[in-house]
């Protein structure tokens, strides 16, 4: 049970357990710098934030980073996407190494347009593959892209789409007032086969 990589959920469970064994594990955990995330580590989140901000950039509306897309991904890696854990761990590490090799800098530290150019190459398959293990750079990018869309547009219950920001952006009311207050106006509900402008 005492294991460096136990998840935040287990950590919390242990903390609230209140036995001697728990205290020992707590100490071990502190020494090993426990992440405030569930699966990903602080540095991985830093890199992921920069990537998701590229995928959904800030303009007159916030982007992927503000919307907690990385939190969405981290949450899924602890639940529905457990089978993607290794892909993220290995992929982020390989990505980081490759960028440092190419640019002598971390991805997060590069100017925004340079980051964009790197991801474009990666998406197009024009990217050094030497650090990659089982997965291709292009496949890795597409996975993060899809997960980012889920995190930005999906329900906030899954950890992303902070304050329903994407719904605001699209001009969709939220909460979706059930029935949209049309209970009393029945006229729109009728279809008239003889008029070309039915309803309304």
């Amino acid at each position: 049970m005492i294991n460096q990589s136990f998840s935040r959920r287990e950590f919390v469970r242990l903390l609230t357990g209140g036995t001697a064994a728990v205290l020992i594990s707590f100490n071990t955990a502190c020494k090993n710098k426990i992440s405030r995330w569930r699966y990903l580590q602080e540095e991985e989140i830093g890199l992921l934030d920069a990537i998701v901000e590229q995928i959904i950039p800030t303009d007159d509306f916030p982007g992927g980073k503000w919307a907690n897309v990385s939190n969405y991904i981290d949450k899924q890696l602890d639940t529905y996407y457990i089978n993607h854990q290794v892909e993220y761990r290995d992929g982020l590490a390989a990505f980081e190494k490759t960028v440092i090799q190419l640019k002598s800098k971390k991805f997060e530290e590069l100017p925004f347009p340079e980051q964009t150019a790197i991801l474009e190459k990666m998406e197009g398959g024009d990217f050094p593959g030497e650090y990659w293990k089982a997965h291709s750079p292009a496949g890795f990018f597409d996975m993060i892209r899809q997960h980012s869309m889920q995190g930005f547009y999906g329900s906030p219950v899954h950890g992303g789409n902070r304050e329903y920001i994407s719904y605001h952006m699209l001009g969709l009311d939220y909460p979706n007032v059930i029935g949209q207050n049309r209970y009393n106006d029945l006229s729109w509900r009728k279809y008239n086969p003889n008029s070309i402008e039915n309803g309304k």
Partner: protein
Amino acid sequence: MANKHVNAVVIGAGAGGGVVAKELATAGLSVLLIERGRWHTFDEHGDDELTSQRTFPLKCGYGPDNEHNWRMASDGKGGWIKVFPNDWAYGNNAACVGSGTVSYGAMAWRFQPADFHLKTKYGAVPGSTLDDWPLTYDELEPFYEKAEYELGVSGDPTNDPFVPPRKNPYPMPAFSFNSEGIILEKAAKRLGLHPFPIPMLRNSVPYNGRPACIRMRTCVGFACPVNAKAGTQNTVIPVALKTGNCELRINCMVSEIIVDDKGKARGIKYFDADNKLQEQTSDLVVVSASASETARLLLNSKSSLFPKGAGNNNGWVGRNIQDHAYTGAYGLFADKLYDDVGPGACIAVNDFNHRMPDIIGGGVLCNEFIRMPYQFSSIRPSGSRMWGKDHKDFQKLNFKRHIAVHGPVQEMPVFDKMVEVDPVVKDFWGIPVVRISGFRHDNDIKVGRLLADKAEEWLKEAGAVQTWKSVPGKGSTPSQHQSGTCRMGNDPKTSVTNRYGQLHEIDNIFVADGSLHVNNGGYNPALTILALGYWVGGHIAEMWKGTHMK
């Protein structure tokens, strides 16, 4: 303790099974309706797009789960890959009380009369097992009507010259068009087409103790929060339970139909909610587990007289699986047209169903259900950049400025497009799993392209400033519209059941679900499956009166 013997076990509480259970229970038979899923409500799921039954990156909210269920799918290179319910290659419909009818879009189509005699109409089609049904549209018509009245359908065929003939009007008036429907109606008329409101298994006015629809953004893929959408779970199944003759046993996975050495079904084996193997005896068994799972059950029910599975001595169980080759087009418009009046799909034309010269089959064209934000993030003209500024600009500009027109192309049945059970891989309970393989017929692709052209033309006429098509390919896993794996027919050599859904080879096993379809029409299939439920159920009740199936 042994389970009490019943007259009939009905496997699967979905579209077909729900109706049959009601027909048998009201006829006085003791019925066990057994379902691997459970009850679901809107409150449990809300309007969460990521776990809906339409887009399901995280899970299929309305079942089945990924922890107990998987299948094998062809990898296209001669090998097999393991797939889960929320992979498209799995081919899921649903698994719960009501099954697909809880979360469906509720389009309520009758097939065209011609769909019941396609071979007579078009002749033999090379590479296809196309055939006539052993029953005619006219024979099924009263059962369509029964489904429409007992579950509740809103519609108005006045403006559809191609409407399948009906003796009586729909029980409820049609829904009005939303703003995209209005634009499309005008354009269709200018093109000489015949637009009309899509018939829906949704209440346009209060009906059968359930309220009228409040026209939400989320409908297809979700349960209905006010019960305005009719599924078997809020119509026929409660009626069946109320008779006192029907027990609904949920969270129970049926593994096998027990067939004795004389070739008679004696009941079923199933894993109960605690995963314990149980037996249930019965006088007859009705399999309504959906086209893929019904075939799986029959194939997994081996006995001395049926070593290849129940009723499968001719090798036709699981063959000819069909779906629909969805096709269509998207259009972008200069002005905002989105009005948030759900569920979106409201207008259709029947002009391209059996009415294109020299073309076999066809399909209805409809405007689509509302595309939710995550789903919309993948709707782009080909070659678009799917991220970054391009992505965000497109979402902001076009979410409220686009229309989708799509339709289900009638598929030509192909013998080698099929469901088998995997020889090695087993599910959580140790039951051999489904594996699906095969390719669509070339005709499906040809018709798909043609219909996409028609959809695009319609959008252009409506004023779209940019359009693009989405056309079907050869590969597909039949999912929400799966059908055809236990086709009915008069010839026992080339079909699995007779015209009443009774296995040719085992007279106390019946099938009542999409499996029976000889052909899946150019329409969404649920109303036809419901009508067949009444047809088969009514026939069993008649037979029961005389012989008690002894």
